[in-house]
């Protein structure tokens, strides 16, 4: 049979494809209906939080930080309650990471504050003297893309039935109507911050990346 296959590239390719596709069908598909259910009380990300998640993705925080607390006492002591599948139901993509050069962040909102993050992102060694994390000063001047975050919210609502309110529509008018809400959320964050440029930017209607990122960090609980 193998000699025959080696002379018939078409059937050879079909054979290879079947053999490699098999595992995916058996191992991955059965989980799909089960695993996408949210835990009770899980709220979708706000637009500001989504914009913060985008900053997290843009600067690849995932390269050094995980968001997955494994079921060991040493991990629950350090980071809090073990992670549950349903907590990730609205995470597109998942951000578990594969390397902990820095600590896990899945429940960082429980034990770090806006003020701490502001100091830490400006200069990590100011709060953790031995830290090897780079400073992310550019996040204090770069403006977060909240319009794209809003577009993402509308997309997941329409395509994946993520429970956002009726006011989330894909029109420019709906976005303009929602924008003040995002700015109000941002002001709640900047109320606890001290960087004057950041505060001024938000007052002028521009939200620096750091504000969105902190909103996202505070949400991780």
């Amino acid at each position: 049979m193998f000699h025959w296959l080696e002379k018939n590239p078409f059937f050879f390719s079909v054979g290879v494809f079947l053999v490699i596709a098999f595992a995916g069908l058996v191992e991955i598909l059965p989980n799909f209906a089960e695993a996408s259910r949210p835990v009770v009380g899980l709220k979708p990300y706000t637009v500001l939080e989504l914009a913060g998640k985008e900053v997290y993705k843009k600067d690849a925080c995932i390269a050094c930080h995980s968001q997955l607390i494994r079921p060991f006492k040493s991990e629950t002591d350090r980071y809090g309650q073990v992670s549950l599948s349903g907590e990730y139901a609205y995470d597109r993509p998942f951000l578990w990471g594969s390397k902990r050069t820095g600590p896990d962040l899945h429940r960082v909102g429980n034990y770090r504050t806006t003020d701490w993050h502001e100091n830490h992102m400006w200069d990590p060694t100011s709060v953790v003297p031995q830290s090897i994390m780079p400073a992310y000063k550019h996040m204090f001047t770069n403006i977060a893309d909240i319009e794209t975050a809003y577009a993402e919210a509308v997309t997941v609502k329409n395509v994946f039935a993520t429970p956002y309110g009726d006011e989330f529509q894909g029109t420019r008018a709906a976005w303009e109507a929602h924008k003040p809400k995002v700015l109000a959320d941002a002001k709640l964050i900047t109320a606890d911050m001290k960087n004057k440029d950041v505060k001024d930017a938000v007052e002028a209607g521009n939200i620096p990346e750091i504000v969105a990122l902190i909103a996202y960090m505070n949400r991780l609980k």
Partner: protein
Amino acid sequence: MQSNAALEYDYSVAKLFTYTTILFGFLGMLLGTLIAAQMAFPELNYMLGEYGTFSRLRPVHTNTVIFGFTLSGVFATFYYVGQRVLKVSMAESKFLMFVGKLHFWLYFVGALVATVSLLLGYSQSKEYAQYEWPIDIVIVLIWVAWGTSLFGLIGIRREKSLYISMWYYIATFLGIAMLYLFNNMSVPTYFATEGLGNFMHSVSMYSGTNDALVQWWYGHNAVAFGFTVPIVAMIYYFLPKESGQAIYSYKLSLLSFWGLMFVYLWAGSHHLLYSTVPDWMQTMGSVFSIILILPSWGSAINMLLTMKGEWNQLTENPLIKFMVLASTFYMLSTLEGPIQAIKSVNAIAHFTDWIPGHVHDGVLGWVVFMIMAALFHMAPRMFKREIYSKSLMEKQFWLQTTAVVLYFTSMWIAGITQGMMWRAVDEYGNLMYSFIDTVAVLHPYYAIRALSGVLYLTGFLMFAYNMIKTMTVSRELTQEPQFKSPMA
């Protein structure tokens, strides 16, 4: 594999991909060395503003070595090996010649655009699948172009029976196509709304645990079909060609090929042990990872036995040395991986530096060594000149071998140290170390790893220099060497 002197093969596309292998190899390894040094000396994060931090550069490093260096090497060897084992020249078909060149230029321009997009921060944040959707579409086009070349060449072949290397190239094509398409499924937000926000942005089709499953089914097997399968294709061709020895066992090659195809895909979930994916999937991942030793070692042992009775070549020919060491590192790496996939070992190893340590003994010791050996073997045949310097090749071999050993030993120690410190408790059951203690202790190992990067990069520069000299000023050959590559 009898020689066929009457046929003139056309290596123009193989040559183009050879150049990009060298270029992207240099860039990828330079970035790797830089980010390794950043972990030891954080001040190095601030050389390029927001574009120079570890986190921004790390995906650029991984993508440049995977899709830049390795894929270029795969394509370069394919456009060389494919013609020779199928006994057909690309020059015989104007269409295939055109597709081959289109393939290269699409790839080259695509690679540059993709790299810039990562530096700017356009990222799906899925490992080794960071590129946003417009770039994914370009990648699909590149892949279709390669498929057209691959099956086009097969279509007009003279040698009816496909040689082992061709099985592996076909599997590479199919495997990556399937994995890449499914893992990158996403909805562009710009088109799902009235053109709101950034055109490049998209949102993943899968969420949470499902996304994790699909991602690691992809992530693990992108390694399989990018770093294992096509490299095995190379060694099955180049080791017999360089040594003049026939493959030890056809049956063993059959067993390893079909075994690898069937088993590899199951093992992806070993990246998700103790996560929120169901237990049975985790167990399947562990079990199949152990089984995976069989087909992996099958290929490696087949290669080593091919050298049976001819071990003197190891001392006489540095190219044989590269390939034998590559097989050996393949064995080391494919034993280490399954060990890390055992749940109790994974509890310590996961999230630590042992994982990048494992990846790099595989890629530096196996993938890069094999690709460099392949290009060294091809150079005298493509450029009709002898290899510029044997002694430089010998020095390069030992320098890079030392570098790989330094890399994985330092990362083994770093990983196990950190894994043990995370879980250490005092006599009252409280955690003994704060997180930062477990970072500070790693400094010497990070410094050793950065040094190993410098050594390896230096070795790669010696390779590049040797290749460029071979292409341009080395002594010309009057006829094609049959087995051992001539070198000065």
